[in-house]
């Protein structure tokens, strides 16, 4: 494997000072080492941040849940606060990768993971994301797994995360730390659409480190569900997935949150679909209309048109299940 220098950071400041354009942080290492071996990423310096005190999950006074950047995917999925208040996040995490990878992968690392587009991962292929200006072999290639939402002429790579889809639906804030202090970025603003600059994937600047992700308070009484559709039942990336969360006001939908995975160039929140749900009866016809709206702007490539009805159906099914769970929750609250 390509040579690099290695160092350990023992404070956030220390870590932030180390990070320049040719350096990379390593936490779980599951993306970084994979892509260094493929010659896709070529850091000269690797900064190990595992000693930083970023492994706590804590409920804040305002009801939000603050997750340290280094909390592993396994620990987050099984955390009592997450299982109780954000079951869709737990489901999304456990639907991602394998046991071994979840044991290694961290919360911030999951946010920072790279696309699985085979042309990005093949250093011999043209890829504007990996090598700006080189072209996009996916557009005219085997693009069954590529994006139908958010793509550009330059790039149609899918954001591969499950966790991020749940977080997009829940609503969250990233805390970015640097030598100049901290700043906060809304989860939906962190990942960028590819546009003409697909190599700029996110809002993180040189010298910045994600230190925490803080989830919005859970809706209540509410139901939530993460549905992942894929080529095999486990250990596979999504062809389409949907994260849904809604609260009920009698038979009407109170609040609603919907996000899609496997089809977008970033974790894909669907605000127009959400607006079409609020105040409407919680029934299939409403869900189908919302799904229609969510995929209204979808553009298929040669081999992935099937993803559009698949994504619609994933929204309908996730909303149906979230509604069922919200009714159960409402009944339980009524009994107390």
């Amino acid at each position, binding site marked *: 494997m390509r040579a690099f220098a*290695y160092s350990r950071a*023992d404070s956030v400041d220390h870590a932030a000072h180390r990070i320049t354009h040719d350096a990379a942080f390593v936490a779980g290492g*599951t993306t970084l080492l994979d892509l260094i071996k493929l010659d896709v990423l070529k850091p000269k310096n*690797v900064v190990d941040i595992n000693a930083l005190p970023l492994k706590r999950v804590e409920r804040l006074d305002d009801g939000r849940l603050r997750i340290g950047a280094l909390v592993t995917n396994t620990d987050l999925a099984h955390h009592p606060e997450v299982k109780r208040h954000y079951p869709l996040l737990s489901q999304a995490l456990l639907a991602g990768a*394998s*046991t*071994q*990878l979840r044991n290694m992968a961290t919360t911030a690392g999951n946010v920072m993971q790279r696309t699985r587009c085979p042309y990005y991962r093949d250093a011999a292929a043209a890829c504007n994301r990996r090598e700006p200006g080189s072209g996009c072999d996916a557009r005219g290639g085997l693009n069954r797994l590529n994006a139908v939402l958010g793509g550009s002429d330059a790039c149609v790579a899918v954001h591969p995360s499950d966790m991020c889809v749940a977080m997009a639906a829940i609503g969250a804030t990233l805390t970015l730390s640097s030598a100049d202090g901290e700043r906060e970025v809304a989860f939906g603003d962190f990942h960028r659409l590819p546009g003409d600059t697909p190599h700029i994937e996110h809002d993180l600047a040189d010298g910045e480190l994600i230190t925490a992700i803080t989830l919005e308070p859970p809706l209540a009484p509410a139901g939530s569900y993460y549905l992942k559709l894929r080529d095999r039942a486990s250990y596979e990336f999504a062809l389409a997935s949907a994260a849904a969360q809604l609260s009920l006001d009698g038979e009407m939908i109170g609040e609603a949150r919907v996000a899609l995975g496997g089809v977008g160039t970033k974790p894909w929140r669907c605000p127009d679909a959400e607006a079409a749900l609020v105040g409407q009866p919680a029934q299939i016809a409403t869900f189908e209309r919302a799904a229609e709206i969510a995929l209204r702007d979808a553009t298929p490539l040669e081999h992935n048109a099937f993803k559009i009805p698949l994504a619609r159906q994933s929204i309908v099914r996730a909303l149906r299940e979230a509604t069922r769970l919200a009714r159960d929750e409402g009944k339980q609250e009524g009994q107390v």
Partner: protein
Amino acid sequence: MMDDSAHSPRPSDETVRLDFTLNGEPRTIEVAPNAVLLDVLREQLGLGGTKKGCDHGQCGACTVHVDGLAMNSCLRLAIMCQGQQVTTIEGLAKDGQLHPVQQSFLECDAYQCGYCTPGQMMSATALLADDRIGADDASVKEAMSGNICRCGAYKNILEAIQQARVQLGHDATTPRKEDVA
């Protein structure tokens, strides 16, 4: 405590000191900064039981335990194991006696070519010690999905794991360190 010398970036023709526990024994070795745990185990420490399959975290043949959790040793820098407990397939048997998971793989014929077997066994022992993972067949299959068996011995692997679970339950009055790691 961290070694101060590891704080400064160093070129990779130099080595870095790694203190860790390997199969219960404290070890101190020098590794290249870019050395991957799997390669250090196989090439530097002569422990060939841990297998290299895909080398990208997709097949699970390289699975070891780090502080009791199953991990892909192909996607972990050796130096990241500073101060940690690493267990490989060579560390499962104790005092000449097979671990119940090894014994049940043998009895259930849970392999054909055997190449994935060390990784399968490491994942199996970790999941049997993890009370967050359900005991039903579906949960076990899900938890084992990071271990690919090209021969397709999955049915017998599942049977072996569930048989070992019973065996470990019977032995619960005298747990061995490895069973609870």
